């Protein structure tokens, strides 16, 4: 949803739409994603020192394990949002892939065949979203609200009321186990790999550059010969695929495949991504910010339960955080602009110098 008023000034001072490639962050240190990152660090430090039971390996592995599904989907979701679209059906896609996984497992198919099939399913789910958006030019918000219901419904038809729990132990261990005595869940490793790939793609390849351009102005991108539709379609497919993977991981992590697995996951993902400073107009944001946002929320929830903050208050706090996350950069901007104006008042104009030098 675009901001109510888009003044050139507003855009002008909101920094360029670049990754950390652009020296933007060096320029205005007040960039929101860096702030979120800092917040996360502060929170972790405080919790380690003050909250008992927080620091021990078991709890950390809980923290990471429970945040992983969100962090997984956040990766492609960030790119999708930067390209100006959104996918609300991720939770349902995960649920569907889990349900199918359970169904096929009950049918006696081998897990090694099931998982690739689930991933394939994710590709299909993504394709459906993507084609509806790019071919028919429908708003992604509307489309994915539709598929949100549709995929969940299909999951219900597939698995009905059963819940499948008897997946092979070694897989369950992968879903919930940790690497040796460390606090790092085994599943965190593939995530880290995906993260690296995503960062490179978004911030250091033509694809990433194009994504930012498309998100900022689809028309101009088209006139620059960027294949907008194909790009968006591929982003939807990526999101679908990762969601399906997440569904598999979810079923293994919680040792239970049900049609209502991962219900409402989309909101958590979006909350985290937003908190990380990804602009829903598209064209702005960094993966670092998104991931920081996701883990900030995750860590907060973990800490709050450890210090016995009631579920109700946790909801409240999440909400307040979200509001702050969008108000704060705004305020920061105002401050920054004020400072800049004061500086400009007494600085000589470099503009002329640089011109016909």
């Amino acid at each position, binding site marked *: 949803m675009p901001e109510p008023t888009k003044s050139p*000034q507003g*855009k*002008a001072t909101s920094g360029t739409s670049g990754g950390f490639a652009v020296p933007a962050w060096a320029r205005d240190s007040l960039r929101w994603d860096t702030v979120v990152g800092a917040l996360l660090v502060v929170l972790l430090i405080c919790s380690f020192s003050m909250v008992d039971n927080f620091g021990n390996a078991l709890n950390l592995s809980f923290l990471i394990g429970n945040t992983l599904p969100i962090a997984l989907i956040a990766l492609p979701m960030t790119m999708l949002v930067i390209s100006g679209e959104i996918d609300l059906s991720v939770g349902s896609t995960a649920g569907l892939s889990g349900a199918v996984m359970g169904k096929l497992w009950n049918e006696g198919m081998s897990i090694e065949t099931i998982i690739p099939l689930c991933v394939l399913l994710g590709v299909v789910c993504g394709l459906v979203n993507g084609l509806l958006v790019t071919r028919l030019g429908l708003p992604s918000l509307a489309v994915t609200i539709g598929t949100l219901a549709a995929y969940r419904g299909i999951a219900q038809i597939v698995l009905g009321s059963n819940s499948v729990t008897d997946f092979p132990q070694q897989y369950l261990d992968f879903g919930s186990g940790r690497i040796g005595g460390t606090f790092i869940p085994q599943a965190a490793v593939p995530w880290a790999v995906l993260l690296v790939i995503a960062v490179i793609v978004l911030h250091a390849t033509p694809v990433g550059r194009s994504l930012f351009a498309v998100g900022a102005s689809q028309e*101009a991108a088209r*006139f620059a010969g960027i294949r907008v539709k194909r790009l968006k379609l591929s982003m939807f497919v990526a999101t679908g695929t990762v969601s399906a993977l997440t569904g598999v991981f979810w079923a293994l992590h919680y040792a239970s495949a049900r049609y209502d697995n991962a219900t409402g996951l989309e909101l958590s993902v979006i909350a985290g991504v937003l908190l990380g400073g990804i602009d829903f107009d598209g064209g702005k944001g960094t993966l670092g910010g998104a991931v920081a946002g996701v883990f900030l929320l995750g860590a907060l929830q973990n800490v709050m339960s450890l210090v016995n903050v009631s579920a109700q208050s946790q909801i409240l706090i999440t909400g307040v955080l979200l509001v702050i996350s969008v108000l704060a950069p705004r305020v920061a901007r105002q401050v920054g602009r004020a400072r800049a104006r004061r500086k400009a008042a007494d600085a000589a104009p470099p*503009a002329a110098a640089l011109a016909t030098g």
Partner: protein
Amino acid sequence: MTDPEPERTPVLALEGVSKSFGAVRALRDVSLRLYAGEAHALAGENGAGKSTLIKALAGVHRPDSGTVLLDGAPVVFHGPADARDAGVAVIYQEPTLFPDLSIAENIFVGRQPRRSFGRVDHKSVRQATADLFRRLGVDLDPDQPARGLSIADQQLVEIAKALSFDARVLIMDEPTAALTGSEVARLFGVVRALRESGAAVLFISHRLEEVFQLCQRVTTLRDGAWIASEPVEGLTEDDLVRRMVGRDLDELYPKQDAKVGEVALSVRRLTREGVFTDVSFDVRRGEIVGLAGLVGAGRSEVARAVFGVDRWDAGEVEVDGRPLKSGAPSLAMSAGLALVPEDRREQGLVMEMSIERNINLTGFGATSRAGLMNRGAERSRAVDWALRLQVKYARLADVVGTLSGGNQQKVVLAKWLATDPRVLIVDEPTRGIDVGTKAEVHRLLSQLAADGLAVLMISSDLPEILGMADRVLVMHEGRLAADIPRAEATEESVMAAATGRGRNAA
């Protein structure tokens, strides 16, 4: 409401106004006085601060220092609404319409005539609009939504809107940039009438002859600083240019003859239903082909289709003998085709991205190695072209949307020239560009042509076409009406074809 002694108190004035955007000092201690019954021109290079000055007058920007005087008394406009209520009507450089509203509503938004109980009187809104259009001799349907209007049509609606205020002060920032002679002539008629009825007019245009046609007094800005305010008579174009540029200007149409090579772009029986029909032409190496026509003739549409952003329904397009696919810009680019589009804000630039990113949008091939972007290559490519076109900017990382209109246009050119294309299609390449840069662009184009580039130049600026083109194609009602060699190309011959009176050649 004519002032007995016009020279005494100005209706609207600026005293010692300064305005900075970040590091950029757009205005430095500028003063300006607008008198009732007088048309005042504002001249200056791109980025000189003209639009900023206007926005200060209109209450869009608050000056950092200095005052705005209304009838000699200091006022503070807290927003465009205040200025409007004070009787100041503004046409901004970039059309600002509501795409979803009907043209009529666009003109009267917030001021609709009302019936009982404050209900909007839709009928008289429509009526009033129709009357305005009759006055301007525009044929547009008041009920048609503004979405999809060509730049020119948008500009006409903006003009109608400004006139509908019958304001005491009428401010126009490059209203004619997109217009052809006929519309300009009619606009000037209306403006003169207003002036005689005692309105004060502030007018900006990079077409200097227009300044001399319309205005009595001219103020010149350079790099945001006030240079001079003087009566127009006794002033020559060269004087004015000297004031603006600060040096003597070389020839405006430096057309050098290049040896014409083999066909580079060949268009055959191209048709897009409802927009243009059966368009066939060739452009050869070293040749600049002008494409003229009335606004709405469909020139831009042909260009869009050839480049591939619009599909075509029938016909073929070949670049160096390689056939292109309908609706595939990326293929067209790799075949060596480049299009500098008509609407820089929507099509030419990603307004919220940096200058650097915009220039490099067309050059991923050149700036990436093994699929990874190369920062160094990106920056040097951007710097190189920004300097070649003398873009006036503070930092390459600046958001392109903050550049002045003309400098934005330069960035678009840079972006496409950087792809070193075989065939270059330019749609209104010098719209809103100051004389100095215009000459630059023209020199650049003919230089490129001389180096064997094939250029198709769409322009509504007839002298430009006549000055630069080896051949002039003329479109009329979506059809190619004539193909006139440079020797025979005159205003008369081109106009005749453009209005459908001409010989049906080619």
